[in-house]
């Protein structure tokens, strides 16, 4: 497999400009002759579908939900970054670029990240023009906050609902195109496979989730905007339907997968409280601006928090990282929380939680100020846990949150399959080994509003794409594959449930395996163990999973089963990737690679590359390729938050 990242030559700051100039264009009158499939209507998908339709292409958009507006992007709370430097605090395109590269622990491409920082400012303008109600200052200008430990205030926000407002903006643009006929919207369709004709992506096969019908759709290019795969762990902050299916099916058809083990664990989530738990709820990172993280010094100390005096509390982040304190990056905060709990100092009924205490902040700023800042987060917390953070410290624990890994794409966002593009969280492109807060929304919209139109024009302009219809035998063949697989998922149903396992049973089991061995900190032994266990779980799934109902009907169990089956296959990629990366970097600690002070130790000599995995067949180990990372404009430094 050849990996050509197609990074334009020339100075960093001019690459995007010169690339746009060198890219081929499609005559406006010819655009309507091209059909583009967009799978997913999150920030990336909705913005791409709307933008391409505005340009005159015919777009078919697909999503799992009953409405495009429900994509998981809606849940983002904190905000979106942009290098506007409205606050005059020294921000610039280069600084956003630098922070993102450094935050990603020098495992991302310079050119991609620089472009992201460049278009970030246009994103804000675009969203404002659509009527996104960003927070404002008294004078009417846009408000900013500092987010996720950034030294400048460059995060734009709309209360705690930034993702929702941005998505509704993109959804409104999409709705306008649906109304004008530029986009045909297909709701409640689950993409089951990509169809490749003559080496190019030419369509998809979907399951109609209402009728169970298997449908083929053909096009001249296919865009996957299907989000992240955090749900491989069963418990995550992702929405229930988030999945790897679309990306994984593409991978099995030849699209290489990059850095599958790069998973971000968010430090401030509401802890698990029972095995019936279906998902974890994120509490915005901004809470760490005022909350102090602590555990009892003594692990036998089971007193309620209010009765633990100051001298018996261990504010471990403040003591270990005096200059950043509670604002250390996500990975550091998460890892330390886990460490404290592993030491037996965790709090709460499960011992898997640490305190986030607002007591001092309330004393310092008064109840009013704290309530104004965090009131709705506190309310949400109280709704779930029945405890009021104004009175009792919050309890938090890390949870799987975001996947930096994704389909490998070149500078044009094209995967290793010509005509198949990946946008948003489902590609790997911009965040390296760790994503900065408020940068995922930025990336999704950058890809959809500003990058993909150039790539698509260039692709259509430079290749001759012969017409294909969905009656082509290639589609029939894939339809058959899809059908066979669905039948296989239902194969155990006839004998009734006795002695069988449910989909959730298996999902929990694989989730646990990944969390324990392929989570925030990993070691060879655990990963090898996981690699042995995973096929056993997979076998159990296929031999004894019980999926009620039929295929020709609404069948939510069948939908879940299909997704879990894909996690079971894909999990192996994650584990192998983790195993092969014998360095600590970004979000994960490789236990064999630590400094003397037990901090993560990156190994630039051996691992300054993207690990790109190629699927080789169901019974074969995948093959790893390396895309070397070249740093010409920044010097990789060891992160230090001491």
């Amino acid at each position: 497999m050849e990996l050509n990242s197609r990074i334009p030559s020339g100075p960093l700051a001019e690459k995007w400009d010169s690339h746009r100039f060198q890219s081929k264009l499609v005559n406006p009158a010819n655009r309507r002759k091209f059909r583009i499939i967009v799978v997913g209507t999150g920030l990336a998908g909705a913005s791409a579908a709307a933008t391409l339709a505005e340009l005159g292409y015919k777009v078919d958009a697909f999503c799992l939900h009953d409405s495009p507006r429900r994509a998981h992007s809606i849940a983002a709370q904190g905000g979106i970054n942009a290098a506007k430097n409205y606050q005059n605090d020294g921000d610039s395109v280069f600084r956003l670029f630098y922070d993102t590269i450094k935050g990603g622990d020098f495992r991302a491409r310079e050119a991609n990240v620089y472009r992201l920082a460049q278009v970030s400012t246009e994103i804000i303008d675009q969203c404002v023009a659509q009527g996104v109600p960003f927070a404002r200052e008294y004078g009417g200008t846009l408000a900013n906050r500092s987010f996720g430990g950034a030294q400048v205030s460059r995060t734009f926000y709309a209360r705690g609902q930034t993702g929702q407002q941005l998505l509704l903006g993109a959804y409104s643009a999409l709705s306008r195109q649906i109304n004008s006929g530029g986009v045909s919207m297909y709701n409640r369709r689950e993409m089951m496979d990509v169809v490749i004709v003559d080496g190019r992506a030419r369509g998809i096969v979907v399951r109609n989730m209402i009728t169970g019908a298997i449908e083929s759709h053909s096009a001249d290019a296919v865009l996957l905007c299907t989000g992240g795969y955090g749900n491989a762990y069963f418990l995550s902050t992702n929405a229930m339907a988030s999945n790897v299916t679309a990306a994984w099916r593409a991978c099995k058809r030849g699209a290489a997968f990059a850095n599958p083990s790069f998973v971000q664990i968010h430090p401030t989530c509401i802890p698990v409280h029972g095995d019936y738990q279906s998902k974890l709820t994120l509490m915005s990172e901004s809470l760490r601006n005022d909350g102090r993280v602590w555990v009892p010094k003594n692990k036998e100390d089971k007193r309620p928090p209010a009765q633990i005096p100051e001298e018996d509390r261990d504010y471990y982040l403040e003591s270990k990282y005096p200059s950043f304190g509670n604002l250390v990056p996500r990975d550091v905060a998460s890892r330390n929380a886990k460490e404290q709990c592993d030491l037996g100092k965790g709090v709460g009924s499960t011992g898997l939680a640490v305190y986030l205490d607002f007591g001092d902040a309330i004393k310092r700023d008064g109840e009013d100020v704290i309530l104004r800042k965090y009131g709705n987060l506190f309310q949400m917390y109280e709704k779930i846990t029945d405890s009021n953070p104004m009175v009792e410290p919050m309890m938090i624990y890390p949870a799987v949150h975001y996947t930096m890994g994704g389909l490998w794409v070149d500078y044009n966002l094209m995967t290793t399959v010509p005509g198949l593009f990946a946008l948003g969280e489902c590609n790997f492109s911009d965040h390296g080994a760790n994503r900065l807060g408020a940068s995922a929304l930025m990336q999704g919209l950058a890809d959809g509003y500003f990058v993909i139109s150039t790539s698509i024009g260039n692709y259509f302009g430079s290749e001759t794409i012969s017409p294909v219809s969905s009656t082509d035998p290639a589609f029939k063949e894939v339809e058959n594959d899809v059908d066979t697989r669905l039948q296989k998922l239902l194969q155990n149903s006839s004998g009734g449930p006795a002695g069988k396992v449910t989909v959730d049973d298996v999902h929990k089991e694989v989730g646990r395996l990944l969390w324990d061995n392929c989570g925030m900190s990993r070691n060879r032994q655990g990963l090898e163990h996981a690699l042995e266990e995973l096929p056993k779980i997979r076998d159990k799934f296929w031999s004894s999973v019980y999926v009620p109902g039929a295929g020709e009907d609404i069948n939510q169990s069948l939908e879940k089963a299909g997704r879990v089956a894909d996690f079971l296959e894909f999990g192996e990629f994650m584990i192998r990737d983790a195993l092969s990366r014998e360095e600590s970097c970004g979000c994960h600690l490789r236990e064999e690679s630590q400094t003397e002070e037990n901090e993560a130790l990156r190994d630039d000599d051996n691992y300054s590359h993207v690990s790109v995995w190629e699927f080789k067949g169901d019974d074969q180990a995948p093959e790893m390729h390396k895309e070397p990372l070249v740093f010409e404009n920044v010097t990789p430094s060891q992160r230090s938050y001491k």
Partner: protein
Amino acid sequence: MSSIDLTLKIWRQKNNDSLGDFETYILRDISTDMSFLEMIDVLNEQLTREGKDPVAFDHDCREGICGMCGAVVDGVAHGPDRETTLCQLHMRKFKSGDTIVIEPFRSIAFPIKKDLMVDRSALDRIIQAGGYVSVNTGGTVDGNSIPIGTETAELAMDAAACIGCGACVASCPNSAAMLFTGAKISQLSLLPQGLPERKERARSMVAQMDKEGFGYCSNEKECEAVCPKGISIRNIARMNREFLRSLLLGE
């Protein structure tokens, strides 16, 4: 943490063409820390293990923001807790021995797909009729060149907070979508970006709303009361004003 025993009466309906009916289920040892949907998860696991068809229901984020979940619980859309979606409703609001009646969001405009799952695409079509600012990607002015006072920004955000769950429709004696439509029209009529199209927008969105079969408003205020985002009927007044404006001043 404590646990409770419950009797559930749930609406079961195979598809839009078939007739539905209530089924009764008994659940034991439900932790009061569970969310309502986790309680249905438990029921579904139980049904699956018994070889029965699990209850179909829509859900996704389980954080109260995607607007996908929703059912009428004991006659109230999203259940007894105020400003709460069904996924954020917790079982501590119920007592052991309670019988809970669970029905889908009903409206002529929301055909039932299966059990508690309904088709709310009518709401999408209302947005498609004009719930946007007609601006193409690119070529926009700098964000700060459109100053918007905090009060206006806050009011617009109040309206924009709508999650499109359809509880307003489900709870309205007339199955009106006034709160939903009013919220979107309000957001865009408060902000300067929305003004150029305001007359056309009010007219076409209201027309679409009627076409979908939603009812009129008789000021029952039930929508506002069940709205998980606390959206005020002031937005309906604003929509009425916008509509009147387009009636009097439109071409």
